[in-house]
């Protein structure tokens, strides 16, 4: 396809919510327009694998978690990180306190809900670093593929579930659970944090200067959106709500989410910090018997776009 036109399609990795506020704000406030871009934001969902959409030509750029993107790269789909608006990870495990879990070693013999679909990699790395098997039994953890809500914890089908600081954790609290009934483990604190929500494109496209230029504009405008969202969380949440076509979101939830998201994007100007990248790769390579990636990837990110954009 030719990249001479001004259109950009962005594939999100989840449904419209404040997690993606920066892009919606940029769209709503006309930042993309100012750059001369026509941006279309494609919401995702549990049935959508953004790398696949990218490969099929359905989008120009995607948001993805780095473990999933690196795995796709090893599978022969060369995706490249061009920007990293999220500095830190919002992923955590939330457990019932009354199960007696105090540290990772207490997971043995417990049941833990994990998101799959490419998002299981951080968890698997973590467990292999802790030396805990994920095949169940006395000395291992029983893993469930959790759906995308917090029922398994509320219904006590699992002792711990994966939550995002900005979304599911809040839903647990909404369900009438108080914080002191819970124990949480942030991946960030456990030293196994991996990079989340980066912007990725296909390597071959980057060879086209026109495409590159488009991405520079796109990243610049997006970051402008992110910074605006950080400063005006309530307004950003309102914008997101306007773009949610399902009408399923509630204002209270989006406002809270925006507040938490702002904490994750705070440390980033959009440029990927190679140290963060290295930490992510190291974590993944430590992945034990069923490694996420087998070798350190080459050329999985480029700073060219952000260098130019943030000048």
């Amino acid at each position, binding site marked *: 396809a030719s990249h001479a036109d001004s259109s950009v399609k962005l594939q999100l990795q989840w449904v419209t919510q404040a997690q993606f506020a920066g892009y919606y704000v940029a769209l709503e406030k006309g930042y993309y327009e100012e750059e001369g871009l026509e941006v279309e934001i494609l919401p995702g969902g549990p049935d959508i694998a953004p790398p696949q959409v990218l490969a099929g030509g359905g989008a120009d750029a995607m948001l993805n978690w780095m473990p999933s993107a690196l795995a796709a790269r090893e*599978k*022969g789909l060369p995706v490249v990180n061009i920007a990293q608006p999220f500095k830190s990870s919002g992923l955590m495990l939330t457990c019932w306190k009354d199960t007696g879990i105090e540290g990772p070693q207490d997971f043995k013999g417990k049941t833990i809900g994990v998101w799959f679909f490419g998002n299981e990699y951080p968890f698997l790395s973590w467990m292999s670093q802790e030396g805990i098997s994920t095949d169940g039994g006395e000395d291992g953890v029983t893993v469930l*593929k959790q759906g995308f809500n917090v029922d398994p914890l509320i219904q006590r089908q699992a002792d711990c579930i994966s939550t995002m600081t900005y979304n599911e954790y809040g839903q647990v609290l909404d369900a009438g659970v108080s914080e002191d009934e819970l124990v949480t483990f942030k991946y960030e604190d456990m030293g196994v944090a991996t990079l989340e929500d980066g912007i990725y494109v296909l390597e071959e496209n980057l060879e086209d200067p026109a495409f590159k230029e488009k991405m520079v504009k796109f990243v610049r405008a997006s970051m402008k959106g992110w910074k605006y969202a950080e400063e005006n969380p309530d307004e950003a949440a309102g914008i997101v709500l306007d773009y949610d076509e399902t009408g399923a979101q509630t204002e209270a939830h989006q406002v809270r989410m925006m507040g938490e998201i702002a904490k994750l994007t705070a440390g980033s100007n959009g440029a990927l910090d190679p140290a963060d990248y290295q930490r992510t790769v190291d974590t993944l390579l430590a992945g034990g018997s069923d490694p996420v990636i087998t070798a350190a990837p080459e050329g999985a990110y480029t700073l060219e776009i952000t260098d130019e954009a943030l000048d």
Partner: protein
Amino acid sequence: MGLVIAALVIWGLAWWMNIRIANGAQADTKGAKLAVPAIFGLTLLVMWELIVRGLDVPMVILPAPSLIVVRFADSLPILWADFVQTVVKGALSGYVIGCAAAFVTAILVDRSDFLRRGLMPVGSFVAALPIVGTAPILVMWYGFDWQSKAAVVVVMVFFPMLVNITAGLQETTQMQRDQMKTWAAGYWQSFWTLRLPAAMPFVFNGLKISSTLALIGAIVAEFFGSPIVGMGFRISTSVGQLALDMVWAEILVAALAGSAFYGVVALIERKVTFWHPSQRG
């Protein structure tokens, strides 16, 4: 491009061959009846292979059949474990429970006209609830393991079975029922000796429809939460990992299992309803 043209040529050739066989003298032999669909299926596979290669379709979108077969052969233990979890534990148990429940309900409905008139419309309404909506609810109620999958299957097969069994039980002619009356037969006597055997073609029709429904139901339900084994689990995770060859290997298992399931039911049907004109051919 050459490969694509080759694909079309092969298609033409195979089709010509099939027409020859189907209209030839041997068309009614067992061999021909197997050969024709086999040739058709093989042609589809060859075309798929050639077109995927010819157009350079990325593996993460559509893998070639040869890659799928390799993946299949390499992953037999995983596929087997998934098969046991989904088909044996989830689909089969749900199928059995659902059919049995439908059978009992059919008898109740048969005995009470009031129940029939009240239950059937409500039942058809409930049957219209889409699985994507009911599966998450049932997973929430019955947990992550196969029990919730079985529950989804029960919900899916119950109504088609109920409809078919009730229709089947109506299948006797007035004359046959009168005949029973002239012998002063009781309800259960005429049920076991007349109405149930007469209902069998319908019952098997329902069993065949339900066999594919059961399989699909069990797989789809796993999309909404599962242990880390099962065909639905593998499919959804593998899509996320872009392991499309694995996805298709599982789909192959599903198609094989589904066709075999259907085939077994059809075989039993042949044995049980040997007397029905459609089986005497």
